[in-house]
């Protein structure tokens, strides 16, 4: 049945609950530009985690929102996977702490995934497989980060904090059914962080065309072609968003309009939440989606790869949208800080 590159699960599966979390603090690009003597930055502002927040606390709140939307008991989860490039511990799973906080322990898989900005969709693919094979009825995939850019580096304008949790379950209970997914991966050295280093480095010219654009376009083009779909068949499309320019350009090349991308473009107001970025855009799109809407989701992770998914929204969406705070609610909750407070909150001061 499966001659192409698309992955299909043995039984139909989908998203039964989704939830996001974005910290309340914001630093504007104008403020970062002022400190480092630049004219401006690529986005308006980015979300900054507070002193008592990290990838685990972000994951917990996003997952609680997803559980409320799914209306399942936490003990029904057979997996909690946390995708991140900023786990608080180098050794000790974030996922066991998240699972314990949710009340999901002890009968489940729990682990952390690492694939730069696509760690969240890597977890999502695995969750589709686990539930799709019938090994469990529900699996929780999370992408969350407190991303760090070296002070003065161009990444500092966008590296942000936030995350989204997606609960995969049987299609009959889903608010969005997965019609197919695909992964496209190569060894590309566009961005990395060595062990014990605080800040990542990026491979300059690898960042744009050979990294982001090549992988997202390859994944999206093949999934559309093999499913016999075109951009016009979709209500919305969401791409990994390290800034505003990249996803707009990728979308445009694939034939999508500004209107199709608009609900999922959150990077201008929260920044690049790395493993949380594409799926927080997806969550913001689900917040406004209607039954019957088809949504394309394509992530990108440096190193490098892209996961692409085709979703179809069901009748269940409308009632579940309002069960938990929406992405827009968190974007609205905003306290602006200056560079000095930002440096303190993000541990950039050596004392």
């Amino acid at each position: 049945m499966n001659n192409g590159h698309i992955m299909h699960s043995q039984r139909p599966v989908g998203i039964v609950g989704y939830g996001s979390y974005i910290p309340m603090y914001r630093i504007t690009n104008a403020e970062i530009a002022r400190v480092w003597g630049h004219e401006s930055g690529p986005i308006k502002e980015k979300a900054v985690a507070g002193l008592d927040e990290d990838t685990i606390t972000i994951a917990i709140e996003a997952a609680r929102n997803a559980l409320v939307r799914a209306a399942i008991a936490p003990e029904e989860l057979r997996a909690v996977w946390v995708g991140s490039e900023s786990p608080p511990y180098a050794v000790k799973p974030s996922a066991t702490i998240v699972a314990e906080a949710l009340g999901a322990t002890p009968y489940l898989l729990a682990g952390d995934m690492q694939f730069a900005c696509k760690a969240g969709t890597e977890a999502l693919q695995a969750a589709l497989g686990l539930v799709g094979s019938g090994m469990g009825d529900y699996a929780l995939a999370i992408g969350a980060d407190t991303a760090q850019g070296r002070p003065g580096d161009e990444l500092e304008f966008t590296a942000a904090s936030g995350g989204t949790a997606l609960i995969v379950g049987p299609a009959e209970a889903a608010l969005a059914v997965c019609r197919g997914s695909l992964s496209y991966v190569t060894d590309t050295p566009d961005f990395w962080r060595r062990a014990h280093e605080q800040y990542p480095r990026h491979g300059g010219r690898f960042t744009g065309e050979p990294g982001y654009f090549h992988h997202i376009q390859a994944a999206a083009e093949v999934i559309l072609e093999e499913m016999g779909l075109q951009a016009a068949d979709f209500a919305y499309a969401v791409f990994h968003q390290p800034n505003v320019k990249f996803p707009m350009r990728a979308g445009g090349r694939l034939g999508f309009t500004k209107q199709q991308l608009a609900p999922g473009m959150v990077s201008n107001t929260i920044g690049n939440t790395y493993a949380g970025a594409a799926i927080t855009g997806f969550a913001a799109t689900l917040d406004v989606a209607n039954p019957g809407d088809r949504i394309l989701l394509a992530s990108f992770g440096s190193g490098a790869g892209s996961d692409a998914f085709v979703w179809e929204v069901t009748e269940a969406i409308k009632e579940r949208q309002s069960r938990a705070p929406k992405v827009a609610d968190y974007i609205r909750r905003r306290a602006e800080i200056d560079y000095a407070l930002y440096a303190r909150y993000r541990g950039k001061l050596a004392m």
Partner: protein
Amino acid sequence: MEHKVAHDWRLRGQRYRLEGEVCEHCGNKIFPPRDICPECHQPAKKPYTLSGRGEVYSFSTLSSAPEGFEAYAPYTVALIKLAEGPMLTAQLTDVAPNEVTIGMPVEMVTRRIRTQGEDGVITYGYKFRPALVAHAQ
């Protein structure tokens, strides 16, 4: 230090997710769990997870913080009256001390409480913040 790790570990249910108890004799909700109902004095061991919604009963702002909490100063500690009845003490977060009022609706979040130095365990637990979405008391 190791004593503290074991102590925190034993309390993870109540610290992470407000797991208390409900008295099967009089229905009273109990937090923290103490296995005896403070209302009717009967055994009460049935776990009950509280909603985490409540309001500020009283509060105090600390400028001189105890060891391990210096980085958060100044911060506000409040008595929180939970929707189910119990009262507890907790740190407030995501709010400036001068924005806190008695009766303010708050909700539980799980946050970093403190860390045992740069290489020690990170302790997570409940704090309360102004309710994100208005809720009925």
